[in-house]
């Protein structure tokens, strides 16, 4: 896990050792790849990102298959709503050796609910919120930032003042007010968070575009008569892709943390439904008596957010057009 970045470009040894002029010409020059292939190859070689991706997929699969989603049943036999007879103090029954998960692998909460099912439900809800926010906010933020930065003038003034309007209201504050209105509805909460979190990306993209539009290749495209939207999409955004992708992942992890914060303040998800944030805030006083009730959902938030950030880092390196690889 301590390898979050790409290694320096390494030359793959060619297995073909025949020497002839034609082969030499073909093999000494690197094979050509499309941009997409290059990105994919670089990303697949990014160890930390790949490890994170595997962990993330594992968590997602675990959360969805274990307790099912909506009408689809899962393989775990307990629900996050029912209470069960308490075993002891409700300690986690998972054992590393001999490996067994026992009756309640993550223990039971104070009322006897199965904590594994509760946490899985929390993961599901946090996932739903995180990805909705990440996608929506990225699209909105990129579009607004790129248009403002490229066209400047009155368009920029209008769009950036609109962005300012959202920026001067602290994200958490606006989210708290809207979240209170949403009344614990998960999808509404996700929309609310998306509505408040695109601003930073818009400003960053605008800054990047302001700088990029003065570069020679944009001037060249202009001189050739390329229309504005095409310059933005083909020439400017690919160069800003690193910023956008990194921020998309930051947005996803920030959305998880904001949801956590909202639930903590009591303006987010509400019981009987649950989320990781609600679990942690409910059991913050349990740290002395039943520490697992506090640690487990917190660790899930941390690991989840960490994985997303590492994947973002891997994507950043992979998208970087200046990074030569093979």
């Amino acid at each position, binding site marked *: 896990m*301590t*390898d*979050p*970045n790409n*290694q*320096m470009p390494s030359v793959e040894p060619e297995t073909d050792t025949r020497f002839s002029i034609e082969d030499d010409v073909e093999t000494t020059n690197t094979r050509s790849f499309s941009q997409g292939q290059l990105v994919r190859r670089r990303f697949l070689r990014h160890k930390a990102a790949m490890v994170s991706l595997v962990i993330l997929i594992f968590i997602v699969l675990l959360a969805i298959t274990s307790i099912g989603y909506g009408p689809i049943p899962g393989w775990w036999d307990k629900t996050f709503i029912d209470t069960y007879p308490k075993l002891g103090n409700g300690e986690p029954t998972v054992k590393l050796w001999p490996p067994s998960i026992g009756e309640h692998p993550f223990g039971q909460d104070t009322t006897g609910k199965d904590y594994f099912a509760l946490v899985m439900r929390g993961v599901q809800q946090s996932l739903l919120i995180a990805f909705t926010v990440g996608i929506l906010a990225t699209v909105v933020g990129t579009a607004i930032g790129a248009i403002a930065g490229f066209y400047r003038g009155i368009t920029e003034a209008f769009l950036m*003042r609109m962005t*300012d*309007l959202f*920026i*001067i*209201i*602290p*994200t*958490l*504050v*606006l989210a*708290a*007010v*809207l979240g*209170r*209105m949403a009344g614990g509805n998960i999808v509404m909460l996700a929309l609310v968070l998306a509505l408040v979190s695109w*601003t*930073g990306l818009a*400003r*960053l993209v605008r*800054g990047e575009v*302001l*700088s990029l539009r*003065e570069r020679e290749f944009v001037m060249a495209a202009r001189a050739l008569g390329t229309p504005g939207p095409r310059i933005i999409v083909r020439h400017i955004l690919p160069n800003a892709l*690193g910023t956008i992708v*990194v921020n998309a992942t*930051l947005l996803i*992890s920030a959305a998880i*943390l904001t949801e*956590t*914060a909202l639930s*903590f*303040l*009591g*303006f987010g998800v509400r019981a009987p439904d649950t989320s990781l*944030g609600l679990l*942690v*805030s409910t059991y*913050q006083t349990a*740290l*002395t008596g039943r520490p697992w009730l*506090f640690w487990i959902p*917190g660790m899930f*938030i*941390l690991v*989840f*957010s*960490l994985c*997303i*950030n*590492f994947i973002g*880092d891997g994507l*950043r390196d992979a998208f970087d057009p*200046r990074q030569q690889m093979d």
Partner: protein
Amino acid sequence: MIRYIAKRLGISFLILVLGSFLMFVLTINSGDPLAEYRESNSPNRENLIKQRIAHMGLNDPWYERYWNWLTGVFRGDLGQDIKGQGVNDLVVQAAGSTLRLVVIATVLAIVIGVILGVLTAIRQYSGFDYAVTFMAFVFFSLPVFWAAVLLKHYAAIEFNNWIVEARFTPIQIVVVAVVLAFILVAALGGPWKQRLISFGIAAVVFAGALFYFSAVQWFRRPMLGVPLYAVVVLAAAVIVLMLTSGPQNKRVRNAIALTALLSIVGYAVMRGPLMANPTTLMLFLCFLGGIAAAVVSGLALGGFSRKQAIIASCLVAVVASGVALADLMLSNWNSYLTQNPRPIPTIGSATPNFSSDYWGHFIDAATHLVLPTVVLTLISIASYTRYTRASMLDVLNQDYIRTARSKGVSERKVITRHAFRNSLIPLATIVAFDFAGLIGGAVITETVFGWQGMGNMFKVGLAAVDPPPVMAFYLVTGTAAVVMNLLADIAYAFLDPRIAR
């Protein structure tokens, strides 16, 4: 430029008003302010409800309520909260503690984050880079209050138990010294042999220092005193010199040396009075005096590199003032400990019913700041480190850096003069953005640590669907955000002439 700033301020003002409208409408529609009475069985329920409707003007249409609030604000009256308390008083009490928290955390995070970011960019793909990156990711991924609760539970209580004796066991000394030396060497880099030697020296020095600190219980009665102060300030001056102009520039070197000397002499003279009966004004004047000395020595000795000399000397003066303040606090630590044997509190922004001298109260406020500041700083350090690293790497790959290197500019100069300044450009946006985010984070932190700050005011206000406190919070944070954004844009234009208007 002034016209531009005036125009921006005008627009920001309009945005602020527009935002207040949005916030007000959202807040009054976010719930039912009468909810607590609707569920109560109190005999005078109807009466209470009527009272509250009259008090909050709930029967007025929303635009009238907003107008009343807005005109009130322009008259300098933020209204009354749901219990009839004046919001003006609430804000005055709350804003101080919150801004103190946020400003300290921001400054710390920027300084540490930028340093780490630059170091990791220079040592890209080294063990140090990986370790810092990993830690940055972990901190970035931490839920604020989860970390806060854990810190409260483990760090604070453990420290308070330890400070009673303030001694290290031999094993602790060895482990801490090795770890510190390892971090130092990882950050320094260099060939393996050099690293091994510096690791050995650093480990021995750290172990010796820790042994000494433990033996004299330094952490119970710490103190620098004037001689050590002089050493620290001179070291800081050397570092500043290396980072700004380099030792070749005689003018800057002399200006910095004079500033450091003046600071040491000044502190030696002022230490007595400052220990005995200090006032905030006096401290502030001393700080101003330091800056004035720096400017004067820059002007006098700077010659043609006057501008650079003044900036560098001012940096030295700021560091010297900081060290002086730290020494004064350290010197009074012991008397604070005797009054307050468990020094790191987990709740509140001041010890209730605490009576002491000036430094006692000063340290009391500082110890209450420790945990919330650590939480906020850790979380925003991560983003500063990451962004600085990314933009530094970006700049280091540019052609003009290669040109500079190939014409023989020293690596130090390439990094401090050519690369570093340009890598700060994207950071200007981040700072403004992060500041607003930190205020949001402060809402959480205040809740966890039980501070009676702005965040608490907002939270209670929103839970009760009570617009005046919520709007007051918005006004303060919104104004702060506007100012920060304006500063960021000015800095942007200043740092990148390509987009200067």
